[in-house]
């Protein structure tokens, strides 16, 4: 089983078009992504949560996210929690204005030059949260910080989604073809830690297939073949974990 990729932090910006602060969230998120913390962050497209972006949902389920909102409606934070998991951090532009004693941003399509200070302050706050989240231990099972102690250096990824999200993918054979299953390893880890085990009856726990279907499209009519392939992966995972426990 390949080791998981180095953790990244997802940034979900509301990007709302009707408020200057929405534009601020978009520009600040991009500044953090492109300039301040390019190696530690990925962007998550908020509308994709509802439109069926399995990769974005999977990332936010298993990895820490920072929601960045322009107003108290907190669309980014609430939608992330609704469709995946509670964000590890939530930042609202008003809080940044208060902390830095800055005036409210002006301009929708083009922010005024004075509003650049708000973008910079928000981007700095995002970067600080990224640093914090990269320094603590993160539980993929619980989707939460384990403790405040610094994490040991994680193994280098051997299998990560080509989309660049950092989500691990596992390749399985289904009907003679190689199929990539997104987030399979964290899903198996979650099931194992919940007490499920492979047994001799050959039955794959329903929860595993159901969770896989949340983050992957299983073609109609191929459910049984997917279940067989997942069962093999599940058994291999359980054997590996039990071997680690005994060894």
């Amino acid at each position, binding site marked *: 089983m390949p080791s998981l990729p180095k953790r990244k932090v997802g940034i979900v*910006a*509301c*990007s*709302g*078009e*009707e408020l200057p602060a*929405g534009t601020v969230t*978009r*520009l600040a*998120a*991009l*500044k953090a*992504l*492109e300039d301040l913390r390019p190696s530690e962050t990925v*962007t998550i*497209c*908020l*509308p*994709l*949560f*509802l*439109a*069926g*972006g399995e990769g974005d949902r999977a990332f936010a389920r298993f990895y820490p996210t920072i929601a960045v909102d322009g107003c108290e*409606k907190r*669309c*980014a934070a*609430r*939608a992330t929690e*609704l469709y995946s998991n509670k964000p590890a951090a939530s930042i609202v532009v008003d809080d940044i204005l208060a902390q830095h004693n800055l005036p409210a941003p002006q301009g*929708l*399509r083009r922010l005024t030059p004075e509003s650049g200070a708000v973008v910079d302050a928000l981007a700095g706050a995002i970067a600080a949260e990224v640093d914090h989240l990269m320094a603590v231990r993160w539980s993929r099972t619980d989707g939460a910080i384990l403790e405040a102690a610094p994490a040991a250096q994680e193994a280098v990824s051997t299998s990560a989604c080509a989309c660049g999200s950092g989500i691990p993918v596992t390749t399985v054979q289904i009907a003679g073809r190689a199929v990539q299953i997104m987030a399979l390893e964290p899903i198996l880890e979650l099931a194992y830690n919940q007490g499920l085990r492979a047994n001799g009856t050959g039955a794959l726990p329903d929860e595993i297939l159901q969770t896989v279907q949340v983050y992957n499209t299983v073609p109609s009519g191929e459910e049984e073949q997917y279940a067989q392939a997942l069962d093999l992966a599940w058994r291999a995972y359980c054997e590996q974990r039990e071997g680690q426990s005994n060894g």
Partner: protein
Amino acid sequence: MSKRVIIVPCSGIGKTYGTVTREAAYQVAEELRPETTAIVPLSLLVLGDEGARAAVQGAQVITMDGCSLACATLNVRQAGGAVAKDFTVLDAFRRNKALKPRGISELNEGGQALARVLADEIAQTTDELIAGGVDHA
């Protein structure tokens, strides 16, 4: 009851084509047809905001998407809105290959021009929808 044509861009963050949709939406709503159009933020629809849902349910909606996942169109339909016309940046680019968009925070000249092409098409569609019986403020 007065109604405006609602414009919903995907505004996909982190992608140039998403920025083109956002820019085109602003060009329509602020410059070309400020009296007959309004933007509804997609983030509000994703969350199920009642005001945003009511806005798209009670009007004809034009969507703009930056990629094939068509988030704007799908989210409007899931919110119960009727999509009168859906535009994609890729289609506009295929028709105007000299206008290569680049940049995310700030579009290059090609991206600005491509956004203008889209905005002009949306303005024309807006006029057709209005002429077809949509009341407006």
